[in-house]
């Protein structure tokens, strides 16, 4: 088992799997109460959200969420603990996945009840016996006051954490088979003027993955622990191993113990109590026999809860410092923004005040920061954005969007209506193909299919490939705009998305000369490559951008400028209402 003293030196971080909001919130409250600088939970796996919002003291903080363990591994390269809140049927697999992704991690707490015996034994043999700490199943975890809270142990309400002085390290270790009773004992320790050194619940299953004897040895090895308080139950023979440790001189610290279940001896047939292990099949498994064996070895055995409370009460007191934190009045916000703030000095947009933006004087840089939600790391990104803007601002009055803007302006409408008419034209056939193209190149590269397979698949389904084909330009009449865009590939060390798109173009242009890689296809491929190479975007972040229609936004932003220009042009000309000439309409009877 991982040493408690080491946890105090470096508590490490936690990856949580499963959904358990109050439990996670309590861990973050514990972090704030103990003065930790950032949340110990670095990610939550098994959520469809990008982030979950939690309180961080009286403020709020976003904890990143991931669908799978491998997705988490991409973003969180290192973590120390797994908080496994999945069901009994999934808990084993999730633990295995965790150690595959994070072989260096210290350990796991498994919360679920009803883990099969064979799985518990396998967990112990595979991980516990090679030094990993597996706490549970059917328990509430481990708490090292002041340093680490791994599980619901100690409560899910910040008031419980505060009332039990869990923000400070003390001298009494509490070890328990029962999740409910560990908190009862923690409260008893706190109510009698003591603080905890640590508390560990090994759970009420037949084969706990942290054996009681491991927990006792951890307490013995922990310099802060002066006294051990133990809660055990009838069933099983773990207490005899404790007795053996004492007799061998390996366990020397004073122990106060309560072994519950003498009630079981009042009945003729063995009774199965709440926990899986709580059934005395033979005489040595009864509470009385185990109490006797412990007492004989020198353990102070309490006969009742009041005895136990008294025995703890007379232990030397710890210095308790009252914490001044109060989270009573915190309120969750209704929505979240990460890009802009209003301050006393005015407004800030993506990390800079508007005055700073103005002084810098680069609109391309501001657009890039706005679309990424953070300042770009590389000048190449801003330059590509500028080029895209300048090349996409307008493609003539004939195109659908410009035409609708013009028609609306001539109908006497104002700038908002005319611009909206133009913007609302953007869609699958006009201007909305950049995201489609990005999807093609991304799926191709990430999914591992070849350009040939993509073309074959689309041809069979008689579908267009996003980013391929132009009405006017052909292989022998190249689009001058794409030549400018293509130069960006030279600025990158590697450009897998652009390479993929170019090979697709090679195949399609053999079939038909105008099936070239068009402007949309270039923008999509090059922006993917620039974001991956220059801005450090992981595949999953690119995927999120595609889903969010980021690539179509690259078109919408400059074209908005183009539509407004057309609107103002029409107002200057003031030609009056537009009506299609009769010749241009085929009237079918």
């Amino acid at each position, binding site marked *: 088992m991982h040493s408690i003293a080491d946890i105090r030196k470096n508590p490490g971080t936690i990856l949580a799997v499963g959904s358990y909001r109050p439990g996670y919130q309590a861990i973050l409250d514990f972090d704030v109460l103990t003065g930790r600088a950032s949340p110990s939970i670095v990610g939550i796996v098994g959520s469809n959200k990008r982030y979950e919002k939690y309180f961080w003291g009286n403020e709020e903080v976003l904890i990143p969420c991931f669908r799978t363990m491998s997705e988490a591994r991409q973003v969180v390269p290192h973590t120390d603990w797994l908080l496994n809140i999945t069901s009994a049927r999934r808990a084993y697999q999730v633990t295995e996945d965790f150690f595959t992704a994070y072989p260096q991690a210290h350990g796991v707490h498994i919360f679920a009840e009803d883990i099969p015996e064979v799985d518990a034994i396998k967990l112990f043999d595979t991980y516990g016996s090679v030094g990993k700490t597996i706490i549970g199943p059917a328990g509430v975890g481990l708490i090292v006051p002041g340093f680490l809270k791994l599980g619901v142990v100690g409560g899910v309400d910040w008031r419980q954490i505060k009332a039990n002085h869990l923000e400070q390290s003390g001298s009494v270790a509490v070890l328990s088979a029962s999740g409910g009773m560990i908190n009862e004992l923690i*409260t008893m320790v706190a109510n009698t003027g003591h603080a905890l050194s640590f508390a560990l619940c090994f759970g009420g299953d037949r084969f706990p993955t942290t054996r009681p004897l491991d927990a006792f040895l951890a307490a013995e090895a922990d310099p802060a622990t002066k006294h051990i308080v133990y809660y055990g139950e009838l069933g099983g023979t773990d207490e005899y191993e404790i007795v053996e440790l004492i007799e061998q001189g390996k366990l020397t610290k004073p122990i106060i113990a309560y072994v519950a279940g*003498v009630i079981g001896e009042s009945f003729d047939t063995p009774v199965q109590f709440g926990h899986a292990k709580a059934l005395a099949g033979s005489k040595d498994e009864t509470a009385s026999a185990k109490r006797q064996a412990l007492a004989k070895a020198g353990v102070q055995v309490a006969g009742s809860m009041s005895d136990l409370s008294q025995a703890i009460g007379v232990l030397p007191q710890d210095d308790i410092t009252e914490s001044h934190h109060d989270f009573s009045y915190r309120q969750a916000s209704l929505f979240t923004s990460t890009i802009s703030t209003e301050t006393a000095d005015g407004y800030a947009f993506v990390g800079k005040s508007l005055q700073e933006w103005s002084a810098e004087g680069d609109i391309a840089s501001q657009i890039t920061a706005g679309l990424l939600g953070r300042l770009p790391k590389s000048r190449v990104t801003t330059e590509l954005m500028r080029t895209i803007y300048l090349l996409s601002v307008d493609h003539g009055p004939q195109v659908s969007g410009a035409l609708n803007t013009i028609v609306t302006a001539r109908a006497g409408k104002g700038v908002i209506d005319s611009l909206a008419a133009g913007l609302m034209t953007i869609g699958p056939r006009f201007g909305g193909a950049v995201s489609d193209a990005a999807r093609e190149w991304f799926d191709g590269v990430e999914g591992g299919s070849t350009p040939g397979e993509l073309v074959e698949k689309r041809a069979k389904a008689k579908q267009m490939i996003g980013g391929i084909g132009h009405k006017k330009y052909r292989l022998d009449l190249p689009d001058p705009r794409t030549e400018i865009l293509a130069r960006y590939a030279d600025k990158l060390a590697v450009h897998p998305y652009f390479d993929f798109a170019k090979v697709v173009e090679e195949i399609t242009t053999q079939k038909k000369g105008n099936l070239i890689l068009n402007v949309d296809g270039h923008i999509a491929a090059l922006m993917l490559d620039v974001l991956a190479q220059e801005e450090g975007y992981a595949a999953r972040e690119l995927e999120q951008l595609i889903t969010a229609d980021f690539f179509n936004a690259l078109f919408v932003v400059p074209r908005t400028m183009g539509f407004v220009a057309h609107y103002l042009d029409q107002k200057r000309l003031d030609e009056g209402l537009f009506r299609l000439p009769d010749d241009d309409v085929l009237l079918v009877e």
Partner: protein
Amino acid sequence: MARVKLSEYAAKSLLVDKYGGVAIRVRSIDDGVARLSDGQKYIVKVDQGIKKRGKQGLIRLNVTKKDAKKAIEELAEKGFERFIAEPMLLHDDDEERYLSVERMREGMRFLYSPKGGVDIEEHPESIVQYDSIKDVPLPQSFLNRLVDTMNKEHMSFVEINPLIVRGEACSLLDAAVLVDSAGSWQASWGDDDIVEVGTKAASEEAVARLNDGSPASFSFRVLNPDGAIWLLLSGGGASITIADEAANRGKADLIGNYGEYSGGPTREETQLYTEAVIEQLLMANAPRKAIIIAGGVANFTDVRKTFAGIIDALRQRMAELKAAEVMVYVRRGGPNEKEGLALMERFLTQHGICGSIHGSSDVLTTVIDEALEYIDA
């Protein structure tokens, strides 16, 4: 969540190739008998996980198809529902061996004795423990198949007595198997293959159904149908500790039930659970009765929410509770402790059935003393 017993029929169906036994239920005796063969002699046994059936007269030997119905009906008259009929295997008493295999943390533990049979307990010195399968003096092919089946079917304990060995062939004349109920979803046995010793009260069955349909956990077992103290407890550990306190006072016989709810049940689930406890309490024949609503300091179960469910149930049966002069004693801690306790105190006081109310600053077991005082007064 625990080790439970398989019926002998289900156990042998999994452990024995081409098993020749027939399961017979009391509601369809004729169907069962129809599956027996003419000209074959059978042994007919009650199959409800009961030990020492021979000595209790729950076994019939040399039964033919013709008189099987009568044999089963005789056994059914004693109140049993499940039976098993197996072809008789003629053998000498000194052929009988004993074998048990139990899953331990370190691996399987084998106990073997060449002197098996009904009197095994008289020869404890003949039982030898083996920690390695290779050392057990029985055919290895048989042992390997047994352990494979135990692993695949989540069996935790198998006891075969007697076991008859003739060359490589091993016959299981009687087999008792405990399975790990947590593994049921991966095993081929089901709920129907589990036998429970004794019959269940209606309230126990209601709680079992509640438990099956909820992510929270509920248990309820009647210990003394005419008990005076009825426990409505939360948490596996706290519930034993509180029951212990009655035993400490020498009053274990006054306890009506053992049970607990835990794992954050909803208000509605807590109400249903409470109804089952009240139902059983009202049937008890005791001069004075008390309910103890108690638990440790919860880690995550919401005290206010669960107490609201308990109050819903108490309110429904208030007239009967008052008529029976039932008093209620409360001790609980955890999330929303103050609000929950205040809610409960107001409600109980209003109806005049409030014995006492304690929070996390008072020792868990005070309520037992107070309830005993009321009952003894």
